């Protein structure tokens, strides 16, 4: 079973929930840190992910001797990564999303593909937990292909948790797509509510069952609860607004191993999610993901 932990707003506690949930589940647990622009789950697990699995995207390489400047490639490219001029062809690999369309439409077969690295996938073992993380190259803007590479590492058995990047853009969708359930983490503030609503609308379009975790419960206002009530959303867990939790987090420590009172909170969330997993069934088959939509 794949459970994605996501949120519309950044800094609501996705990684806190993902890590402490991972430590509260029984059996084999795999945590996929898909927040590839800032993978930080490893800090709280005291793990050192390693590996040299370089992920790249195919970008066009034009053979100027074969190119007759017909312009088919440029007309197809929605990202303006290739320009055909009377004097030659100019390629901007940093604009290319790696769809491969230009190579396919070139009547002269003048375009071949070369790999442009965008990041790496790294792995680490932390006790019973298997951590996989993507790490995007500095300055890189294209995120979804790396997230899909991390997602492709998922085990077929046991619980797979996905720590998604914040927001509701392509990168969040790449991380949560194909999950069996999405845990939406929010905070009881107007910002938290606004971005929770965006995230709820997104996962509804994706057709994935979802529930809400309210972090820093007791602070802020009642807007999030009223929204969940009105929309029929299950509140899976409320993490209290407690200074010890903030201090433990800021030391880079897991809550469940350092604050005993938090154990039953995450144990109940783990039990709730385990109850959702269909008996005798592994992970849902990944749906075919379109290659071009990055």
């Amino acid at each position: 079973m794949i459970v994605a932990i996501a949120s519309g707003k950044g800094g609501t506690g996705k990684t806190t929930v993902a890590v402490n949930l991972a430590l509260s589940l029984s059996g084999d647990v795999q945590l996929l840190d898909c927040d590839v622009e800032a993978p930080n789950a490893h800090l709280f697990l005291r793990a050192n992910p390693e590996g040299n699995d370089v992920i790249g995207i195919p970008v066009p390489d034009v053979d100027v001797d074969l190119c007759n400047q017909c312009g088919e490639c440029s007309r197809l490219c929605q990202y303006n990564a290739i320009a055909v001029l009377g004097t030659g062809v100019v390629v901007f690999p940093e604009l290319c999303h790696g769809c491969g369309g230009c190579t396919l439409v070139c009547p002269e077969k003048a375009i071949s593909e070369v790999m442009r690295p965008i990041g790496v996938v790294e792995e680490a073992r932390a006790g019973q937990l298997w951590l996989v993380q993507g790490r995007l190259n500095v300055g890189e803007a294209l995120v979804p292909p790396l997230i899909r590479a991390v997602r492709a590492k998922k085990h077929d058995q046991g619980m797979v948790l996905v720590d998604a990047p914040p927001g509701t853009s392509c990168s969040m969708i790449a991380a949560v797509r194909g999950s069996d359930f999405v845990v939406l983490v929010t905070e009881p503030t107007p910002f938290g509510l606004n971005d929770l609503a965006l995230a709820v609308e997104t996962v509804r379009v994706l057709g994935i069952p979802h529930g809400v975790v309210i972090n820093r419960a007791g602070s802020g206002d009642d807007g999030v609860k009223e929204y969940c009530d009105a929309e029929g959303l299950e509140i899976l867990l409320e993490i209290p607004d407690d200074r010890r939790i903030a201090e433990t987090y800021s030391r880079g420590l897991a809550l469940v191993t350092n604050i005993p009172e938090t154990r039953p909170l995450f144990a109940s969330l783990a039990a709730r999610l385990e109850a959702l997993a269909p008996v005798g069934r592994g992970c849902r088959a990944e749906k075919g993901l379109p290659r071009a939509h990055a």
Partner: protein
Amino acid sequence: MKIAVTSIGGGADSEVDPRFGRASAFVFFDTDTGKYVNVDNTVGVNASQGAGVRAAEAISQLGAEVLITGHCGPKAFRTLRAAGIEIFTVSSGSVAEAIEHFKFEELTSMSSPDVGGHWG
């Protein structure tokens, strides 16, 4: 020779649009005939990215040899250079005034991009 000028709204009397890739329109001036022709740039305005690249390609295909605009970023600059289009900048004024300044050689040719990407 055809001169492309970025324009707010089109027409000889319109203001020069300081943006290149996302300029609202281009006005082409033909020095041989003395005529102005408006060219739409909706594709550039709505481009998700690479608007300057697309605009440079478009004016190249329409035969521009000279571009007059306000600013030019790195990718547009590289594409315009590759197309052999010379770039001149003005800080304000109408399209017709910019053409006059060019004719009297009062504009200086641009030798490097003057803004970063995503400026417009």
